[in-house]
């Protein structure tokens, strides 16, 4: 009996995985993303390679030691030149011979206004200009503040505001967690919709070209539906696995390589904080799987009750609304994850995949609520399987106009 379900799964999976679209989206997606980051960086590094050795002529005698680290972090190799009468002529000659990328002149005026002169034969990129300019100004400011006995470092990094919670729970999300919650929610919404719609289209295709009559003659409709859903689900898992692996590889190896090649991009390493941990990743997959099963069941039923793409477009509207509600609420839930409203909405099985994820990824959600959400989603899957299976069974062989709600209910009762 399961032999033919397996045949359906296998067909659905292989047809999709072998399709040009799948290969393009799966392989092309991460490559495109990586390309967007790496290619410009590579060319930028190539073009400025020559201009990296610079000399600093410090007429003040106090700025070099402060400025050098920030310039080195920005990608330059710096050395100090003593101030002497013919230093400009000498360094200019070196630069012209290509021995030196350029040199910076610092003097008393720099200490007062942050102005300096950078002699170079290659016009530096805007990024480099900013790095150098802010480095110089900051060094000067630091010096001046220290003269006043001020903790310059703390002041210049924007101070610090410590939050002390006076009882009760609240959002203690940090920026990276915010991003994980947001990006994750939208990603869940996207992939659940994408693959559920794929199930609907596959159902509709079989119905409209009548091959379903042949298939149903040798297997139960319910088994066909299950096979379709599992087949498409397997495709989605394959695609996500590839994407996630590629993403992790990009962070784990690509990013360090990029930073090594271009030290001024060191800030990018902070992106690593955005990487969710293994536990969170497992929850993400869990919410996706349950969400996919619930919505693909509903979408299969919609596909079965319609006779054309246009009809299906209209009929799926209520389902889209079910997915849009949590997306509309997601910002609110992330900001206030512990309110009764957020808790309630996120426990509703059809909203859980998106809203519970949004809360969980921020941390602080009691484990029992996570557990409860999965229990409720299990009931959701079963209820939808029962309901959708019945609609599917009648609808898939039914031609003619789309059923009204009372007719649908009759299908469910009579099937």
């Amino acid at each position, binding site marked *: 009996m399961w032999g033919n379900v397996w045949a359906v799964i296998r067909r659905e999976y292989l047809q999709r995985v072998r399709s040009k679209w799948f290969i393009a989206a799966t392989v092309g997606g991460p490559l495109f993303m990586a390309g967007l980051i790496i290619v410009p960086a590579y060319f930028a590094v190539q073009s400025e390679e020559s201009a990296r050795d610079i000399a600093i002529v410090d007429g003040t005698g106090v700025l070099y030691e402060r400025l050098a680290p920030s310039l080195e972090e920005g990608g330059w190799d710096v050395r100090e030149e003593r101030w002497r009468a013919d230093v400009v002529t000498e360094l200019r000659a070196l630069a012209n011979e290509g021995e030196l990328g350029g040199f910076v002149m610092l003097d008393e005026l720099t200490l007062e206004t942050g102005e300096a002169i950078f002699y170079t034969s290659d016009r530096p990129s805007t990024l480099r200009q900013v790095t150098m300019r802010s480095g110089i100004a900051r060094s000067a400011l630091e010096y001046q503040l220290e003269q006043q006995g001020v903790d310059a470092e703390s002041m210049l990094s924007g101070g610090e505001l410590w939050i002390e919670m006076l009882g009760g729970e609240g959002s203690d999300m940090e920026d990276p967690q915010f991003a994980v919650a947001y990006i994750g929610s939208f990603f869940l919404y996207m992939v659940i919709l994408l693959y559920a719609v794929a199930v609907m289209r596959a159902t509709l295709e079989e119905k409209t*070209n009548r091959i379903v009559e042949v*298939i149903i003659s040798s297997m139960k409709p319910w088994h066909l539906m299950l096979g379709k859903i599992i087949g498409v689900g397997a495709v989605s898992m394959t695609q996500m696995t590839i994407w996630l692996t590629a993403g992790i590889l990009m962070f784990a190896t690509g990013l360090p390589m990029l930073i090594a090649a271009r030290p001024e991009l060191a800030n990018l390493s902070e992106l690593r904080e955005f990487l969710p941990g293994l536990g969170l990743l497992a929850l993400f997959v869990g919410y996706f799987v349950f969400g996919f099963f619930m919505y693909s069941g509903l979408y299969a039923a919609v596909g079965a009750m319609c006779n054309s793409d246009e009809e299906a477009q209209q009929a799926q509207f209520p389902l889209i609304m079910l997915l849009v509600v949590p997306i509309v609420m997601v910002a609110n839930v992330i900001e206030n994850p512990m309110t009764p409203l957020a808790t309630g909405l996120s426990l509703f099985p059809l909203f859980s995949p998106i809203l519970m994820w949004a809360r969980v990824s921020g941390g602080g959600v009691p484990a029992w609520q996570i557990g409860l959400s999965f229990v409720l989603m299990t009931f959701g899957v079963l209820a939808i399987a029962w309901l959708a299976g019945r609609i599917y069974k009648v609808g898939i062989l039914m031609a003619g106009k789309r059923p009204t709600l009372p007719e649908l209910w009759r299908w469910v009762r009579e099937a």
Partner: protein
Amino acid sequence: MSDNDFAVRLQGVTKRFGKHTAVDGFDFEVPRGVICGLLGPNGSGKTTSIRMIMGILHPDEGSVSLFGSDPDVTRRTKVGYLPEERGVYKKMKCLELIMFLGEIRGVKRAEGKRRGGVWLERLGLSEWADKKVEDLSKGMQQKIQFIGTVIHEPELLILDEPFSGLDPINQDVLEEIVRDFHSKGTTILFSTHLMDQAERLCERVCLISNAKKVLDADLKDLKAAERKGVVAVEFEGPDAWTHGPEVDHVEEVEGGLHLVLRDGADHQPILERAVSSGARILSFDLVEPRLHEIFVRHAGAGAVGDSGIPVGANLDGSDQSYARTTGGA
């Protein structure tokens, strides 16, 4: 005969779509091992009946049995069903599709591949095995679908209008394949509105018109019972012998005469009279009734529509209602 002797049995089956009755009190059997034709004009209820046999539709009244029981999945799997509306996965490769259709009916992939290869070879499609179905012509797609229908070597073939959409050469090929299956003991039920085809292939016919069964009989018996004494003659010389006590009346037809005999009259005395009259007989043929003519006679008598036109009148578009059987004299 017990229920089990029938591959298919419908008893008092009625199916309505809203106010329209598609099939009305239909009783019909297909004994095991025969080729049976389900004949009738478009919209007479052929496809609806077949879809009820396949469990795609459920009768409002009456019962359907397949191999002596309810048409459940297990029994339906022993059927090779070619629906009227042809459907295939267009993006699949031909052999893959055939293997898939076998697999869902329990044929292992390796075996499906082997059988599929043999069939593709037989139908001249070997070179298309790894092409996508959508790259094939309609006729070729239909042949692929036919292979998918028979890949699991079914006990019963149900073919809904199998010949439509095929060119004459491929119609012959298909006809031969159907005969092959028959000789191996497969029961075959096919619907058609092409009377010629049915006449050549069927052992048993069931004629339906306007949702009702008109008749259902062994084709040989039917023809014997329906044979009206008509003799077609071609001759030179005197024609007085054509009149006599056996002859009801004479019709002139192209090239000769049709002598319509009185009920129960024998044609032998006419032949003797003709020979002795000195006429030179070129041909003397007993005319067999054509299935088409039988159908028009029955459907026309019982099922004349509101327009007054016999429902069977447009069956195959030909006006011929009599044909000669050769070798009469």
